[in-house]
């Protein structure tokens, strides 16, 4: 079942021309995209291609200038829907330090449901559940400012979960984290997805894309390709044009396959690929 439908949506930012007159800059233009409930979708593209603008269209932070964005059957341009839409789409941004609003972890997570007017006993329940889902229960009474980046992002995810959304949008939420922090956040995202949550992951790390169900590639404000990760990574011309590259292991596997080696062309694990190459060399001997 479709949970988000973007129908020919465009959004423009105000920009000043060189002569001082007001013009416009493309945020996104004529984007059409459908996202299935329960799917894990990656949104990729170079800096400034419109990924974050698109993310903001998904929960009505921005409303399309033309076209239509429908979330859980509700049109985001109808102001009466905004509250209901934001309850359904939780967002986590890039910088963990910019998303903390309280001085105690559990109060930070409670911020969303409090604003929605959820009764107090239910808030406690929601906060406890949300912290448990991201594996941060033992930090409930701590100060968020002394946590690691990965832990802060998990708290930010818990804050989004406390409003009980159907969709979680991670807008480069792993960009500022170290490898361990990235792993923590991705594990939580995949685990939520297995529990039925629709996850939209915006990222520059192509290794993270490998584990997604589908990928939408953006360039110049529009979606230029959609497919499975491997369909996208197989398309060298496309990757080159939009300034992306496949994970290194996939690149090497493709090069070897094209040169006639007997290797799995879509190999994602460097060690497996190494083993296959060893077998190839043995056979030659």
């Amino acid at each position: 079942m479709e949970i988000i439908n973007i129908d020919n949506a465009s959004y423009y930012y105000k920009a000043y021309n060189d002569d001082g007159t007001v013009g416009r800059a493309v945020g996104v233009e004529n984007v059409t995209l459908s996202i299935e409930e329960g799917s894990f979708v990656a949104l990729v593209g170079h800096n400034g291609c419109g990924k974050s603008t698109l993310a903001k269209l998904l929960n009505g932070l921005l409303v399309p200038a033309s076209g239509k964005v429908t979330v859980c059957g509700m049109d985001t341009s109808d102001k009466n829907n905004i509250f209901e839409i934001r309850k359904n789409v939780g967002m986590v941004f890039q910088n963990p330090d910019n998303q903390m609003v309280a001085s105690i972890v559990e109060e930070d997570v409670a911020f969303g449901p409090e604003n929605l007017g959820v009764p107090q006993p239910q808030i406690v329940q929601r906060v406890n559940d949300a912290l448990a889902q991201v594996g941060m229960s033992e930090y409930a009474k701590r100060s968020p400012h002394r946590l690691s980046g990965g832990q802060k992002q998990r708290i930010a995810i818990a804050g989004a979960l406390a409003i009980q959304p159907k969709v979680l949008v991670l807008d480069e939420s792993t960009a500022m984290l170290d490898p361990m922090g990235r792993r923590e956040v991705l594990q939580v995202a995949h685990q939520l997805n297995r529990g039925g949550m629709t996850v939209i992951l915006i990222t520059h790390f192509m290794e993270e894309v490998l584990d997604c169900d589908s990928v939408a590639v953006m360039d110049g404000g529009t979606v230029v390709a959609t497919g499975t990760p491997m369909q996208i990574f197989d398309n060298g011309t496309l990757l080159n044009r939009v300034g992306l590259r496949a994970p290194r292991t996939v690149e090497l596997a493709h090069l070897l396959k094209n040169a006639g080696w007997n290797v799995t062309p879509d190999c994602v694990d460097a060690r497996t690929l190494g083993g296959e190459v060893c077998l190839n060399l043995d056979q030659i001997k």
Partner: protein
Amino acid sequence: MSKSRSNKVTAPSFTVPDNCAIYCKDVNFVYNPKTPFQKQALNNVSLTVNKGEFVAVVGHTGSGKTTFVQHLNALIRLQSGRMYVLGRDLGDKKLDLKALRGEVGMVFQYPEYQLFADTVLQDVSFGLKNFGVDKDKRVQLARDAIQLVGLDFDKVKDKSPFDMSGGEKRRVALAGVLAMNPSILVMDEPTAGLDPRGKSEILSLVAQLNRERNVTVVMVSHDMNEVYENADRVIVFADGAVAYDDTPRNLFRFETQIEEMNLEVPAMAQFANVLEANGITLPDNCKTVRQMYDAVTALRGKADV
């Protein structure tokens, strides 16, 4: 040798070898000493970096790597131990900070957040202005730096840096540091948050500075693939101490230890390690996908004969 610098006794004279850009011996650093938040950030750090080297500094969050690099231009003053940068004693109370900071260019994380001026030219020449460089010379140096980072000087000089894309902003910020013509370039995660193309543009620029202008590079990074492909040497920090100091190829043979420190083994190192375990030796320069492909192809060529 006394570890404390609080005493007034002058340290015995010490000469650093000429080719040594950075020399550290038993450096310790404690944040918030004598408070409940006391934290030992550096613990007996000893290392040297030679002139013209490209050194990567890695370690997970809280390992002390940022504290270490902030010592290099005396943003953090030495508490104990010895440290010499380009022959200057960082423990010297009369250390010429201005001269040191002219020689050691520091690029922080997300340097584009520090852009502030109305135009790109003003922003890039701000450091030069502070160093009293006259206007014509400033414009000339700023032009060189802006062109060096791959931007068109005449097109961007009067633009507001805030109207530029993320990758362009980062290059403007980098140009501001490069305009000073530093001998040592210290960068804290210079590619964080950039798309793959932006990353490789910044990295090839840094590699070019290192190769063609002999700039000593100290780069903090979380991306082990880029460390593997670019650095001559990798220094791993763990719990405030230097855990490993080795060439990338040697270091990433210690897969278990690397993963225990919550770091990743680069893809091409994983691949090479499997081949080595099967008795296949690869040349040391197989760092990039292309180099690895060429090396493996050469192996098959040999096997065919």
